[in-house]
């Protein structure tokens, strides 16, 4: 348990923040705490030597170009134990040092440690007073300021998470987010008068000091982080989520003025998440949820904090697309997978991001439909909706294309902060969504949903690890899923089944054969009325999954076969009165992890030439248009 009582003051023109906090830490582990760990996340943005910026550069970011005007940092100016009687105890500031347990990068200053004069035994409580000041970075990693729009997140000296065996705190990396203990937050934020504030929890009071500043007090129990936003620009909207069996929730939307008219879309998407996640997994227990609509290019888009999240929309956001709905459902959904079931985001990011992508996709398929692909032109400002291109849950929402391109990027069991930065999204988000959706199709939602519900109930307000999730899946579905989990979680196995061969012809017998056993063989040649159909199905990937094979015949009949998918190939042969038309492996498309769907089927009357002609013709018009356009240059 770690609770925080914080006073913070923002100097908006200088982008400075100062604060003091009293931290109450109760050792939740099974071993004494001999030291403390403090996260100072904003130091990741102080210089290009930080592990965050170095990792970002590996993923394609420009880490060599941090403008000093954009830098952010935190400096602890006081750190002292509070005696049980409330008086000042030992000063710890002198012993505070930066540590780099994860990558030994001596230049990284995002994690600090300090030895305690006396250990904190399991169940014992320690109180600390800490003071700090900070430079708010220009928006990066979903925190900071752009113009006068602030999102102030991972902003205060924060204790690491204390696990059963001791401190479980990591440096700050670009791939991953945060992990902390649950507690109570009581925070007083002083900002200029008339600036709108949104924060974790509910607003308890608002006090003007008469000198142009207002202090907003927010409080919340049972959360593991506190984030806030302030801006003079927001337009505030409120609506109440109601449901026959779930508790009511006050939804507060802080909308950008230029997105006027999009309030319904934000509220509907948030309500959809509260409804479906609530019905499938468990109720959202807090009385309020705050939706931040981030400013253009603020870099705040799509980030979750307890009871508050940022969505993301555009000035021109055509209806019939999932912007802002998709990101809104996703971040609202994180209130469940992250906010309540608080898995370790630094080590097991897939547990909240992947499970949440799976859930978001499921909600999306039930709510914001139809959802058409949008292309943006002219500097990315002008949208064009492709009404011929509807998006689907199984492929688009689950990110199949991203996974296909980076399926072997990393073993999912690798600690997430060590994933290759260029492909971590595919491993964290898409792969998980795809394997969970595969399980849903394999087992049925009626078996998977109770398992997830049970997992949610069991691990709400706690910190599960992967083994806990897998155990919950086994218990909830009544199925031993170890073989499948091993492949998707502990290897980079890729699944690819294909129909390798399909022929179907009248049975024709030719050669020599004796009429009777004692006779000499004589030439025979006969053609039967039946057709021999031969199907060979192959496993081209290293992943193994049971698949069905469907063979269709000209007379409208079909045969379905089950194959355990283990061998390199499997032969099926039939002699039937009708010729085969097609063969398809995984015809019901259960195995969504299959990276090459095109080779899953074969037809004896293929239309590929027709399709290729159709699309080559369309492409030709595009090319002609390009040529005509370029011609004006000569």
């Amino acid at each position, binding site marked *: 348990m770690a609770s925080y009582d914080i006073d913070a003051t923002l100097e908006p023109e200088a982008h400075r923040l100062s604060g003091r906090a009293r931290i109450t830490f109760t050792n939740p582990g099974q071993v004494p705490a001999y030291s403390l760990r403090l996260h100072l996340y904003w130091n990741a943005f102080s210089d290009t030597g930080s592990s965050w910026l170095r990792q970002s550069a590996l993923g394609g970011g420009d880490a060599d170009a941090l403008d000093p005007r954009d830098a952010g940092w935190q400096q602890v100016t006081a750190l002292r134990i509070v005696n049980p009687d409330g008086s000042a105890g030992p000063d710890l500031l002198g012993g505070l040092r930066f540590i780099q347990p994860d990558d030994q990068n001596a230049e990284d200053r995002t994690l600090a440690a300090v030895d305690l004069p006396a250990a904190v035994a399991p169940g014992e409580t320690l109180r600390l007073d800490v003071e700090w000041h900070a430079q708010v970075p220009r928006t990066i990693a979903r925190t900071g300021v752009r113009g006068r729009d602030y999102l102030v997140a991972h902003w205060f000296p924060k204790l690491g998470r204390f696990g059963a065996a001791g401190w479980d705190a990591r440096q700050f990396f670009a791939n991953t987010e945060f992990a902390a203990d649950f507690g109570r937050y009581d925070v007083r934020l002083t900002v200029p008068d008339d600036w709108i504030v949104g924060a974790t929890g509910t607003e308890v009071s608002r006090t003007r000091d008469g000198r142009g500043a207002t202090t907003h007090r927010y409080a919340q129990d049972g959360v593991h982080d506190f984030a806030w936003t302030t801006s003079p620009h927001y337009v505030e909207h409120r609506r109440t989520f109601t449901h026959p069996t779930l508790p009511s929730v006050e939804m507060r939307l802080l909308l950008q003025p230029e997105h006027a008219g999009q309030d319904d879309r934000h509220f509907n998407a948030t309500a959809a998440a509260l409804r479906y996640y609530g019905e499938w997994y468990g109720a959202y227990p807090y009385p309020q949820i705050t939706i931040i609509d981030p400013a253009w*290019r603020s870099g705040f888009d799509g980030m979750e904090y307890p009871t508050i999240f940022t969505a993301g929309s555009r000035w021109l956001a055509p209806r019939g697309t999932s912007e802002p709905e998709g990101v809104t459902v996703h971040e609202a959904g994180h209130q469940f997978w992250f906010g309540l079931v608080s898995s370790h985001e630094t080590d097991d990011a897939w547990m909240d991001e992947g499970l949440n992508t799976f859930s978001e996709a499921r909600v999306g398929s039930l709510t914001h439909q139809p959802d058409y692909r949008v*292309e943006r032109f*002219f*500097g990315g400002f002008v949208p064009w909706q492709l009404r011929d291109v509807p998006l689907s849950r199984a492929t688009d929402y689950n990110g199949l294309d991203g996974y296909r391109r980076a399926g072997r990027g990393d073993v999912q069991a690798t600690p997430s902060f060590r994933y290759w930065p260029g492909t971590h999204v595919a491993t964290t988000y898409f792969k998980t969504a795809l394997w969970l959706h595969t399980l849903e199709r394999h087992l049925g939602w009626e078996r998977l949903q109770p398992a997830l519900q049970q997992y949610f109930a069991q691990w709400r307000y706690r910190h599960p690890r992967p083994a806990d999730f897998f155990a919950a899946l086994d218990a909830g579905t009544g199925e031993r899923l170890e073989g499948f989990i091993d492949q998707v979680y502990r290897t980079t196995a890729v699944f690819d089944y294909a129909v390798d061969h399909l022929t179907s012809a009248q049975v024709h017998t030719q050669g020599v054969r004796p009429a009777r056993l004692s006779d000499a063989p004589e030439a025979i040649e006969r053609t039967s009325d039946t057709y021999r159909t031969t199907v060979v199905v192959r496993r081209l990937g290293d992943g193994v999954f049971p698949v069905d094979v469907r063979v269709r015949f000209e007379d409208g009949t079909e045969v379905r076969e089950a194959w355990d998918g283990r061998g390199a190939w499997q032969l099926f042969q039939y002699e039937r009165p009708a010729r085969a038309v097609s063969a398809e492996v995984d015809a019901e498309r259960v195995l969504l992890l299959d990276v090459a769907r*095109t080779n899953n089927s074969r037809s004896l009357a293929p239309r*590929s030439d027709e*399709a290729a002609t159709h699309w080559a013709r369309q492409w030709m018009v*595009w090319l002609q*248009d390009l040529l005509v356009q370029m011609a004006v240059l000569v």
Partner: protein
Amino acid sequence: MTTKRQRAAYLEGWQRVRQAPALVLLLWAATLVVAVPAAWLLHGALAAHLGDSLMAETAAGGVNLDWWTEFLAQASGLGATFSPRIIGMAAVLDNLSRLTDARALPPVLGIVVAAWLLLQVCVMGGVIERVARQQPLGRVRFLWACARHAGRLVRLAIITGAGYWVWFAQVHPWWFGEVYEAAVRDVTSERVAFAWWLGAAVVFAVPVLLLNVVADYARVRAVVEDRRSMIGALVAGARFAGQARGAVATLVLLQLLTLAAWLGLYALVAPGAAAGLWGLVVSQAYIAGRLAIRVSGVAAQVSLFQSRLAHAGYVAHPLPQWPDSAAADAIRPTV
């Protein structure tokens, strides 16, 4: 007076296109000459990827995004340009946007476009000659005109191409990457940022347009006045555009408005992904229309230039007159 003359030039441009529809047909056919082989290559790649798959069933009549993304994941060369942006009006926006955003062409496509531009340069001499003379040239004389001016116009294209390259490859990244980005550094409204972007685009486009106009009139003067020095033609083109700036600007505006109207019309009727042969007919009509606008623009420029000369329809060099062949003499009745 000026407005009247510009309107007359604009209408005269269309009148000359009406007199020479074969020019539009020729250019349209030229787009096919370049585009069909490329499309055939793509056809092969698409057909090979689909193989005998049932995925072709849906792809044959519309979008199968599942197959499409799978194809793109392994595609290279021309295949990599086969994105959903090619559908209907999105294709037009994609190409226009490619110009404003200075998106480079993939190398293979760059070769295709370069071949097309070379073809264009070679044909343009004949086109200008035809609309300048306002009389049919016949196949042979048209080809002769093309050949006569091709070398000069290639030289002109190299000079202007260097100007475009500097502007798009060197100035564009700086203008939109640094200047525009600095301007919107603290802008938090997308609407405001878009206004900035539009402003930046207009400022960026003005020199492009100026270069384009000067090059257009340089081409016109090179052909009509039978100029050999292309630097001289450029100077002459610039001088003409400067002296008749009101007329030239109005003509450009009228041509841009015509193009915008044509694009707007196409946006309403652009065939979708499922369109069959009828869709192809509509698309080709759109392409032909754009070419007609292009030729009418050239003809209007010629007309405007000729209207400033001593007599309209002036073309410096005479049309070639080939003597009758000796064989004709042989069969001529003896007098």
